[in-house]
């Protein structure tokens, strides 16, 4: 990295596990200057390397997965096989080196391979350790393994998505994994701050299920306090009307909502219906909700021949809530995201140029970046084991000979 100061300069992180829930935390920490080592082995590479598309040119290969690389930019990758002789000892040198350890395996797996918290603490007493799994480390269903896409159903998200009279819907990918990563990532940095003050480490037992519930905490409170069971309702809102998505030209869609009578008075002429402003059927939000079909039909007829982006700009020009329903392609041409440089293209060893996501916050003094692409499998064995851990040539050679590295 250039001379730009970074917030997490000097912070060291080691990750065991794979897929999204653990590695996403390390990725974001790496974007702000932490040194993050992603541990895999040749026999057990990260599942995202070979199990999910997209692959470069559509050809599967251990270093060709755009899915893996998307979640692991800016890290160091080592191959370390703990099942080979001396493997656990080498892993412990790595865990002795780090400030923060992140693992997202099933409960008990780290202990079973000789890397349990109690053991590691003997030689790294103030380690900050984060375990993230479906159900947490304790409780009757602790041993549950599973995918975030399915856990998103248990945690209420799927049931809250879709039309009122239709089926629950998928949210794309392991939605809840990212919730859990972003809710728990601040905690490890808070623990780091406490450690600077008190010398204490910390062990975080994170259940992705529980983290997910923080995103529907209001609905859960409403149930406990008032017995109300939140249900999926398409795009309806209990207050705002209109509040929905409307078809536009070229398979585009436009999201529009209206939060006050004044806003409705601005919306009406903007969608070609100035007479609505004085129509008693639409005089207040409750009446607009009762007569929503007429409003929805009128807005849909107005938007149908328009480009979604231009329609949104026209409504915003009248101070009305509106935005194009961005597709994945649209995210790459969105002017606001361009302004923030959300996508940072870095050249990957086999994938070539790839756009990596920069997190949704900018820091004025320590701006962060995507310092590098995702690493090839085992790409950083040399620098991590020799330079970071200080292995001698002889030690390194022994580990290679034993199949550990």
């Amino acid at each position, binding site marked *: 990295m250039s001379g730009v100061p970074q917030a997490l300069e000097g912070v060291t992180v080691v990750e065991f596990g794979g897929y999204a829930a653990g590695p996403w935390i390390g990725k974001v920490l790496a974007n702000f200057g932490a040194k993050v080592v992603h541990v895999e082995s040749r026999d057990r590479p990260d599942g995202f390397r070979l199990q999910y598309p997209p692959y470069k040119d559509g050809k599967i290969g251990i270093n060709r997965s755009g899915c893996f690389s998307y979640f692991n930019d800016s890290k160091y990758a080592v191959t370390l096989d703990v099942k080979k002789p001396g493997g656990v000892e080498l892993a412990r040198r790595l865990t002795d080196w780090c400030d923060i350890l992140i693992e997202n395996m099933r409960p008990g797996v780290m202990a079973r391979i000789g890397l349990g918290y109690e053991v590691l603490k003997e030689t790294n007493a103030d380690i900050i350790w984060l375990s993230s799994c479906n159900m947490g480390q304790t409780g009757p269903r602790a041993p549950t393994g599973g995918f975030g896409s399915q856990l998103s159903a248990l945690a209420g998200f799927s049931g809250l998505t879709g039309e009122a009279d239709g089926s629950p819907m998928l949210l*794309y990918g392991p939605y809840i994994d990212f919730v859990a990563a*972003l809710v728990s990532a*601040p905690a490890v940095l*808070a623990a780091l701050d406490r450690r600077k003050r008190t010398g204490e480490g910390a062990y975080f037992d994170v259940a992705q299920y529980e983290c997910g*519930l923080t995103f529907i905490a209001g609905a859960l*409170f409403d149930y406990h306090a008032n017995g109300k069971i939140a249900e999926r309702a398409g795009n309806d809102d209990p207050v705002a009307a209109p509040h929905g998505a409307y078809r536009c030209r070229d398979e585009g869609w436009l999201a529009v909502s209206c939060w006050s009578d004044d806003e409705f008075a601005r919306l009406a002429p903007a969608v070609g219906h100035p007479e609505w402003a004085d129509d008693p059927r639409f005089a207040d939000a409750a009446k607009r909700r009762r007569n929503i079909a007429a409003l929805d039909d009128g807005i849909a007829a107005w938007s149908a021949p328009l480009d979604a982006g231009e329609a949104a700009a026209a409504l*915003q020009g009248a101070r009305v809530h509106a935005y194009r329903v961005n597709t994945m392609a649209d995210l790459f041409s969105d*002017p606001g995201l361009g302004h923030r440089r959300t996508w940072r293209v870095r050249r990957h060893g086999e994938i070539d140029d790839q*756009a990596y996501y920069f997190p949704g916050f900018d820091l004025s003094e320590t701006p962060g970046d995507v310092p590098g692409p995702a690493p090839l499998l085992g790409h950083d064995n040399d620098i991590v084991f020799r330079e970071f851990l200080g292995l001698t040539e002889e030690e390194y050679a022994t580990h290679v000979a034993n199949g550990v590295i």
Partner: protein
Amino acid sequence: MLGPYRVLDCTGPLGWLTGRLLADLGADVIKIEPPGADLGDPGWRANNVNKRLLTLDLEDEAGRDAFRRMAKDTDFLLETAAPGSAAAGLFDPDALIAANPKLIHVSVTPFGRTGPHAEWLASDLETMAAGGAMSLAGEPGGLPVRVSAAQSHGWAGAQAALGAMMALTHRAATGRGQHVDVSAQAAVIASVAHAPASWDLLGINSTRAGAFMTGRSVHGANYRVFWPCKDGYLNFIIYGGVAGRRTNEGLVSWMTAARADLGVLAGIDWVRFDPTQATQAEVDAIEDPIGRFFLTLTKAEFLEGAFEREMLGYPVFNVADIAADPQLEARGYWQDLPGPGGSTERFCGGFAIVDGERLELVRPVPSEGEHSREVLGEMGFDSSEIDGLIAAGAVRDG
């Protein structure tokens, strides 16, 4: 963990979670609301528990003066003022950080404080649309939908908390605060997983798939994800691989024990079964007896039975199901605190167990003005100044 730090929380819904997360990590979070604010909203209560409340009118000049004075003696400021508004003028990061160089000023807005759309209006709906999430939810080719409980507030609020902790790490090393500028639109992109990479690398514009999983079979077969059951829906998918095999074998043995009709399932060797090679007719034949079996199960029975057999899949829970889940009970997830009029209110507890203890909510939801005197007093206002602010209507007392 964050015990030494004071947070002034002037946020609306987009930033409520930020202060809640910092409070759960031990920070002293002082929520600021204007007189007469609606404190009964379930979202407000769920996300502003564990904070103190100062009722202060920031549209009043005396109130603004009091705020500027407090901002000089605080570690974090959280705010969600719309760029270009009068409130955003008060929350000027350059001026506030110049007056208090250690201040970490966190702004959470739909599109960030600067940029071509900074002053555009966006509620949860437009923010989920702008961040790409809506394009991935709904029926294929049909209406894109948002989650019917605001999610952009969570994405923005959690990323804001992370940015705040990054800034704290820098401050601990250098003594210097800074401005954290959160774009909810950019924050929501975290929810769409690796879908952007498919466009970036292959030009495949991923879209919504409704209740089915598409794109797995070379013959274009769709696999059902959501299945009606006795009292709702289940999420279950025919997977291949080791985990899929264990799941499928577990299901067949469960159906056998229940004397359910196996149909074609009886003849399938799950070791050799490869979901990527199945035709739609084959998938339909497999799914038919499964669908009929699931109609005989409740959500709770499926959860229990799938867990016992180490099967992948979960019921589609609603808030009532979640509230009754014994796993959450066993882990002490819920926390009860005193509410208005002698009632008890139940909250999602702290989001993690740290060193064996659940992060604890130490304060019930505050009432209007409850901590006004206490907070202003701690921040160096003497009682005549406080009385003056109350008399002027800039502060309300509990």
